């Protein structure tokens, strides 16, 4: 089956309609008044469904909880820690040793000590934030 043969203007009007953009109703009516125009509409819709083929990916929000998958609240909390710690570290760079494990939580891996800061040692442990874990000293895990 050959792709529908439509001119640029017709193609753009139908595409804009499919893309939920605002279109001139007279232009849309004209674009859809021919077999080729209607065929083009169907092809664009079919192409969209093909590209949206679900086997290729699963949206993050719909997956079951997994140890390595960070829910939005954890990402937010981790990001808030980054913001707070980054501000703290900016003021405390001259005091050695600077705590770096909090920043390590967000990155998920030990960050390199910047070459131009002689005093802060590289972190030696990485802590992953996991929901439901008791972080108090002596707590399980």
């Amino acid at each position, binding site marked *: *089956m050959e*792709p529908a043969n439509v001119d*640029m203007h017709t*193609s*753009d009007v139908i*595409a*804009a309609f*499919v*893309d*939920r*953009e605002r279109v001139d109703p007279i232009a849309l009516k004209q674009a859809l008044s021919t077999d080729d125009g209607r065929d083009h509409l*169907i*092809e*664009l*819709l*079919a*192409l*969209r*469904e*093909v*590209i*949206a*083929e679900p*086997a*290729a*990916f*699963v*949206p*993050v*929000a719909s997956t079951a909880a997994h140890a390595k*998958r*960070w829910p*939005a*609240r954890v*990402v*937010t*909390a*981790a*990001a*808030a820690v*980054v*913001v*707070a710690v*980054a501000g703290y570290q900016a003021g405390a760079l001259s005091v050695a040793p600077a705590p770096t494990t909090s920043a390590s939580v*967000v990155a998920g891996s030990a960050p390199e000590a910047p070459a131009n800061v002689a005093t802060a040692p590289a972190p030696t442990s990485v802590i992953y934030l996991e929901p439901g874990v008791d972080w108090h000293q002596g707590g399980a895990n």
Partner: protein
Amino acid sequence: MTHLVADLELLIADHQAGVFRYLCRFLGQREAARDLTQEVFLRVARANVPDTTADGRRAWIFRIARNLALNHVRDERRSRHSVALADVHRPATQELTVAIEQALASLAELDRDVFLLRESGGLSYAEIAAACEMTDDAVRARLRRARQQLRERLERPIVDQRARGVRLL
């Protein structure tokens, strides 16, 4: 701080799924897309959210995602050699996935960016124009070109989809 965290939660809730879908299609790798999605929102958390409309914020977030994806692809090209997939036997769904990835890879880079921002990210033409720093007319032209090429390359899957029926997504 509570106010900032709440705003950030809203941004994540509104855009995480769209960013993840976009990165999945852009990168063709779910794990990398997941990692980069987290990186996008960590950067959003560190940056000053622009004082603009909801559409403007969305365009800004997707610009971050796009830049990270482009950097990731560049780094991958430097560090890996590609594996030829043509001779590997795959189930039908995986054949389709590969066909889609190859069709997308055949597009000009900017045409593909615009197409994925529209189809996977769900951005409007104005948001795409802001994210890619181009005019609305340029967005339309690139979308037109990308769709034309994809219709030719994915003719068979499109015909099959038509037989199953279509709907407005």
